[in-house]
């Protein structure tokens, strides 16, 4: 190979440190890399592909259970769900591309996660998204007074506009891709905080079904077996996308638009059908999608997993542009491409399938036994690297960790009083209309949530998305959750809550949570404080996943979510999957009819007034209404939480309740309202203050609680289940027609028509997007 003089600037431009460069030379047996090799190393050793900063921590996560068929390390995790079925699922971020180009960034995020699923032989049957944006509601001048705290940063009109367009772009991107591909979107969650203003998060989750004995792996094997390239032609788009996702954003990032790929959902649909059909021939040995780092990543990872080598001739790679260099071909992140290894002699069977679906399918190379990735151009070697050097031998950093305190008071500020409650009906309305709590219909109505005719509970119908499995009694429930603000205040506890709440939502649908996937969104890992947040989050997640018996089967880490040095809240997002033994018994969220008993099921009690004051500072009420953030997230006793979830599953399976809804943002008042919305059946309840402040009783966000409604005659049996799991099941009131009335110690504190509350809740998002933001004076 021609020796190539690599200037130090070039090494730096490739995001490699001098030490890493020396290591590359060592791994290449002492010689320097060619330019193509340098590019290959730079993407494979990027944070995005190598997990070099996170790997040492991720090892602590629990990844096994009797249901786990495939844990982390493959394209997606797989669990056994019974009846001969398995399900593959994973969540992945596409934050950086979505900020640079919201529509295509989000669309290709969906495309990427779908390929991860069908690569394993599973047909995608559901997707969900977890989204984070900066504020979309301008603050009124009176609200601006309390600025200066992270929950109440002042945004310019231009910033609010930008957040609007990011939201619109991301949502249409997701819609356009998923709708055309034909997979139901079961919703997810969307939240707004100032820290996401220049760093939106787009985390896409997908789940697919595969017969237990028909799973495919991304592993190459068999000397001289043909390596086949299928799908879209390679272009210059997305070169160095993985590297872009591994650095902070600056003003120059707008110029990175060419690094964002363009999606073609129709082509992906063809790829899905063709791949699944090709797999049925029995002639496919291994298959992997070309996602981040494209041809490079798929070939060296498939080789490394199978302990074999792969040789590729670039002249044979379908190209959509002329005069592409080996560097460009190897690093392109053009979408909708797959690499597969077929059995020698049976390649025609595979090629015929792709031809039927009108797709390019070309034999570009072969499997070798030398464990190397060898790239040829016109027959001449332009890169030759041991696969291990790119994968297992990639740098692993134990980055420095330094404890960090968020710049907020830990005790309730003196100027805030919880005792003198004002108009609580007005407070409830403000919360229901706040961006984090309000109905997200405007978003999910743009998604096809019903295609494939399996959707039992689509967006807005229950706490979790529920699908049936055709030909089986069983169903699957899934939910996403993450609370960045809580992780900011206490990363370890916040992460525990993310696991607990995602699993609780699944349990509220009557399903037993069995496994999880995680998307870990953080700032710059080279900063010891960020690494501390990360380490704490992993610790919290580990503990919660162990206690709640939901092993992590895969996921994704997204670092460098910073713009101009300003990081996001540490935001782990959990996706939990649960199994419903009988899908016909899936739990509903909405009250069914008037005259039913309302029960508050809870594990644990708030300790004392000091705890209450410090915990209330992390609530939506504190942020939205008091304009301030302080203290800690609520306490979480995992044992009680586990008991609550088991009790929910038992109660719902026993047909004891009409509805079950978890209690979270906005507390019990919001949970009651949300239970009333689907059917517009109201509630009349009486809560006991037990000496605690009224606003806390109504809007406090204590963990491990759910609001149930049932026939009064079932109350005793519900209470028996509660006792078995050391929970309390308190009969707090009745469902009534059309009205929402909450009493505290017998005194009416909230009174409103359900319709009136529903208008606020349903219309808030669209109103915010249509309203010109009130600008701060700058």
């Amino acid at each position, binding site marked *: 190979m021609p020796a190539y003089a690599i200037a130090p600037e070039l090494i730096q431009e490739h995001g490699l440190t001098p030490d890493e460069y020396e290591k590359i030379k060592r791994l290449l047996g002492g010689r320097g890399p060619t330019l193509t090799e340098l590019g290959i190393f730079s993407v494979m050793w990027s944070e995005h592909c190598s997990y070099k900063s996170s790997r040492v921590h991720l090892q602590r996560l629990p990844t096994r259970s009797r249901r786990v068929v495939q844990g982390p390390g493959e394209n997606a995790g797989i669990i056994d769900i019974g009846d001969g079925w398995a399900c593959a699922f994973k969540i992945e971020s596409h934050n950086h591309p979505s900020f640079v180009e919201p529509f295509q960034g989000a669309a290709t995020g969906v495309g990427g996660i779908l390929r991860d699923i069908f690569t394993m032989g599973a047909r995608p049957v559901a997707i969900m998204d977890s989204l984070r944006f900066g504020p979309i509601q301008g603050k009124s001048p009176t609200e601006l007074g309390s600025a200066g705290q992270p929950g109440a940063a002042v945004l310019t009109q231009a910033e609010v506009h930008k957040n609007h367009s990011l939201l619109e772009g991301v949502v249409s991107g997701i819609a356009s891709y998923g709708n055309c591909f*034909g997979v139901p979107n079961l919703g997810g969650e969307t939240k707004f905080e100032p820290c996401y203003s220049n760093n939106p998060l787009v985390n896409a989750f997908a789940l697919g079904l595969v017969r237990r004995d028909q799973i495919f792996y991304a592993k190459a094997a068999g000397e001289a077996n043909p390596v086949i390239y299928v799908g879209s032609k390679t272009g210059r788009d997305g070169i160095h996308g993985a590297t872009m996702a591994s650095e902070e954003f600056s003003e120059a990032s707008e110029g990175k638009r060419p690094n964002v790929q363009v999606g073609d*959902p*129709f082509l992906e649909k063809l790829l899905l059908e063709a791949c699944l059909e090709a797999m049925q021939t029995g002639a496919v040995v291994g298959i992997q999608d070309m996602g981040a780092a494209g041809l490079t990543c798929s070939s060296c990872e498939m080789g490394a997993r199978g302990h074999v080598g792969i040789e590729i001739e670039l002249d044979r790679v379908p190209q959509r542009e002329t005069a592409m260099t080996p560097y460009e071909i190897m690093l392109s992140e053009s979408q909708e491409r797959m690499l597969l290894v077929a059995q020698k002699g049976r390649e025609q069977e595979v090629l015929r399938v792709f031809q039927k*679906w009108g797709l390019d399918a070309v034999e570009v190379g072969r499997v070798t036994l030398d464990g190397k990735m060898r790239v040829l151009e016109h027959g001449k070697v332009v890169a030759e690297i041991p696969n291990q050097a790119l994968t297992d031998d990639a740098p692993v950093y134990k980055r420095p960790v330094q404890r960090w305190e968020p710049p907020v008071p830990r005790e309730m500020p003196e100027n805030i009083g919880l005792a003198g409650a004002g108009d609580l009906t007005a407070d409830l309305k403000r919360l229901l209309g706040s961006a984090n709590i309000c109905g997200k219909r405007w978003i999910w109505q743009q998604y*096809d949530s019903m*295609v494939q*005719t399996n959707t039992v509970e689509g967006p807005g119908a229950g706490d979790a998305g529920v699908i049936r499995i055709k030909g089986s009694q069983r169903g699957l429930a899934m939910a996403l959750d993450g609370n960045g603000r809580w992780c900011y205040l206490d990363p370890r506890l916040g992460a525990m809550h993310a696991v607990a709440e995602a699993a609780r939502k699944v349990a509220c649908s009557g399903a037993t949570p069995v496994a999880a996937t995680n998307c870990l969104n953080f700032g710059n890992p080279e900063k010891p404080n960020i690494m501390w947040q990360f380490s704490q989050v992993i610790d919290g997640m580990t503990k919660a996943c162990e206690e709640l018996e939901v092993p992590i089967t895969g996921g994704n880490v997204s670092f460098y979510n910073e713009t101009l040095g300003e990081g996001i809240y540490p935001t782990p997002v959990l996706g939990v999957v649960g199994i419903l033994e009988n899908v016909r018994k899936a739990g509903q969220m909405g009250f069914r009819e008037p005259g039913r008993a309302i029960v508050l099921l809870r594990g644990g009690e708030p300790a004392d007034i000091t705890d209450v004051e410090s915990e209330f500072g992390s609530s939506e009420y504190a942020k939205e209404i008091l304009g301030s953030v302080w203290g800690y997230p609520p306490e979480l006793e995992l044992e009680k939480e586990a008991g609550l979830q088991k009790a929910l599953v038992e109660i719902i399976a026993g047909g004891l309740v009409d509805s079950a809804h978890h209690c979270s943002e906005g507390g019990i008042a919001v949970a009651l309202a949300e239970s009333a919305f689907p059917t517009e059946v109201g509630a009349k309840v009486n809560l006991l203050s037990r000496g605690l402040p009224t606003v806390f009783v109504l809007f406090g966000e204590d963990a491990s609680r759910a609001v149930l409604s049932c026939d009064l005659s079932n109350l005793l049996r519900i209470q028996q289940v509660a006792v078995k799991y050391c929970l309390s099941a308190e009969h707090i009131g009745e469902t009534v027609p059309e009205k929402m009335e909450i009493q505290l110690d017998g005194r009416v504190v909230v009174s409103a028509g359900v319709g009136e509350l529903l208008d606020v809740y349903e219309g808030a998002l669209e109103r915010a997007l249509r309203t010109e933001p009130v600008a701060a004076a700058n």
Partner: protein
Amino acid sequence: MKFGVIIFPGSNCDHDAYWTIQQVARQSATFLWHESQDLENCDAIIVPGGFAYGDYLRTGAIAKFSPVMESVKKFAEGGGLVLGICNGFQILCESALLPGALMRNVGLKYVCKPVHVRVENDDTPFTQACRQGEVLSIPIGHMEGNYFCDDSTLAQLRREQRIVFRYATPAGEITPEANPNGSLDNIAGISSAGRNVLGMMPHPERASEAELGCVEGFKIFQSLVGSMATR
């Protein structure tokens, strides 16, 4: 009774229609590949929803040139039963089996939600199990469902009672609020002059099983099966 469900490469409701016919209506069903002209002696053809050839161009604009649609045209001209759902409706309009066109929704966004449609004509092979004026709850999911035709065509459709479904309130009133996409005259579905071709934007196959929360769409399939038995 044998139903044929067409598969264009970008069809994504093909398997849903097939399932409903086979598992719910208990009729035989077969898939028909877009490149084949052989309709395999089917008694009725379903043109399913989806994105036939990607629909990056006008929806259905390429599908009308497909080999299978040539056969479907002949089949329809000979009085054969053809049901176009969503993208299928768009394709039938492009193929001139039905008049008019489906434009982008007035809200300019994809809309997926349950809607109510009023049965305007129960004397068709697709609605004979319904009552005249009956309101059915059936979901929609589309970006281009805004039906349009010129005045004389609309007058003709009315005169010949070919408007089969109109978007309505749950109580059956035809109001602008009940119209999810801006369709002319709240039109949700129309038939051919011979009544043997129906195009509709709502997805009856998504409302055919109690497990999925609604069964009112199944009446369309019931009607088809019933009418085929008496043909």
